[in-house]
């Protein structure tokens, strides 16, 4: 899940003041930000109270079921249309993805109420750790299921670096060095690191990422229905759509 942290209220207020926003609609997120304890109902109500303390009127509030989901949010925004319309701004307590969804759907000045931190594992209730950076080229199969890209503070594919001491990390000195962990786990499984891992292919992770299953499906369908495949001809393709 996406881990978010509270945003400095001085910044939130300064941004709202920058457009002279007196009336604010607050949107939370029922998914990640709820679990992270940053954008669920209690936090939205707290935000409402703080906004009111600062002399702003809260026209309404809602918790989007999944605030980054455009389809779901379209109906959520429609449900609160009046309250959103009368607001000068929308404050969104979600990750940056959710903030942008709300911005696209409302057309209102939208302000982030949280800081997006990382893709996190829920280690225990209320304890989140970054284990994956979504690098687009997974190495976990050869690193014993421990990601060096993410859990080594330097993101080194090959290690340990020279700062390792007593098996501990140079940067986060209370933690075991990721590369020591990798080598120990592999050894316990009767495996070894083997050769050095090649430099990361950053072209696998170009911004902005985009996946379009519909286009892929359509392309596959088009290929499958070509005459040489012995299935219906080109003229039926249009009809099937």
């Amino acid at each position, binding site marked *: 899940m996406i881990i978010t942290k509270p945003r400095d209220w001085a910044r939130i207020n300064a941004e709202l003041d920058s457009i002279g926003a007196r009336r604010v609609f607050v949107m939370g997120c029922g998914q990640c930000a709820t679990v992270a304890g940053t954008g669920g109902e209690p936090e939205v109500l707290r935000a409402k109270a703080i906004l009111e303390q600062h002399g702003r009127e809260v026209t309404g509030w809602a918790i989007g079921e999944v605030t980054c989901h455009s389809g779901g949010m379209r109906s959520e925004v429609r449900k609160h249309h009046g309250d959103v319309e009368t607001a000068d701004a929308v404050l969104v307590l979600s990750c940056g993805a959710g903030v942008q969804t709300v911005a696209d759907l409302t057309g209102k000045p939208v302000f982030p109420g949280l800081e997006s931190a990382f893709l996190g594992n829920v280690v225990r209730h209320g304890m989140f750790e970054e284990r994956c950076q979504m690098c687009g080229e997974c190495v976990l199969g050869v690193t014993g299921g421990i990601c060096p890209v993410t859990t080594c*503070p*330097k*993101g*080194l*594919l*090959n*290690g*340990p*670096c*020279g*700062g*390792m*001491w*007593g*098996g501990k990390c*140079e*940067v986060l000195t209370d933690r075991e060095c990721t*590369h*020591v962990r990798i*080598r120990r786990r592999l050894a316990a499984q009767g495996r070894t*690191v083997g*050769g*050095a891992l*090649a*430099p*990361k292919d*950053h072209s696998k992770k170009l911004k902005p990422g985009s996946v379009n299953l519909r286009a892929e499906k359509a392309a596959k369908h088009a290929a499958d229905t070509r005459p040489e495949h012995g299935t219906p001809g080109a003229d039926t393709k249009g009809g099937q759509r």
Partner: protein
Amino acid sequence: MSRLRDALQAGRFVVTGEVAPPLGTDLSGLERSVELLGPWCEALNVTDNQGATLHLSSLAASRALLEMGAEPIFQQTCRDRNRLALQSDLLAAWTFGLENLLAVTGDDPRHGDHPEAKGVFDIDSTHLIGIAKGMNDGHDMIGRELDGDTDFFVGGALFPEAEPWDIAMERAEQKVRAGAQFFQTQAFFDPEALGRTVERMHAIGAKVIAGVLVLRSPRTIDFINNRLAGLMVPEHVSRRIKGAADAKEEAIAFATEQVRIAREFADGVHVMPLGLDARVPEILGGAGLRPRG
């Protein structure tokens, strides 16, 4: 030709030293260090934004050293540059006449003077060693042929007392497979660990230059133990220097003993004077070495 490579290949015990480029453009400090260390050292390491703190680039300072008549060991870290920049700087280094390379990972920026900086680490030190070797073979890291190749003498860093020791050695072996020809070690304190490290590296054909630090004051020792990554001054050494009537003199005596031990086990000694450059001749001479002929 790299004097350092020649000496090591001829089996001569080598001395390397270290100079720190200035934070600024005044090269007179470098000049003083070169005057003091140059006559004793086959080559001098030129650090690359050491400790993740801003300094004149290693490339420029290495070139300056060459002009001052010293042989530099151009240090490159992977912290501040991506693969394009590292490769073009390597090509630049060769055109400048820099023949020795020490490829290291680099300290994390959050421990330096610009903690807001992004640590690049696009590639790691093993990759960088491999790239330099590739350039020696006439191609860049994606295999494109170079119009004019290099002939770097390529080194890496090694930590003879790092634990788990086997993992540290496996890592060093990885660097040798990538193309490292020599190692310069972090300061050693345990002769036995140095001995077995050298033995293991010799078995795969790599030379080892043992690091000796001049632990000039109790404050220096505390700084190393609390702030410097990958190094700890053992209690008995710390006690000896801190407890001495004159800590600085004791540190000189200790460094001299360490150089003698290095002569017994290693292919050379790398002296890190931590500002006590003027005392280096005394340390090396005291250990039975002479200025370069």
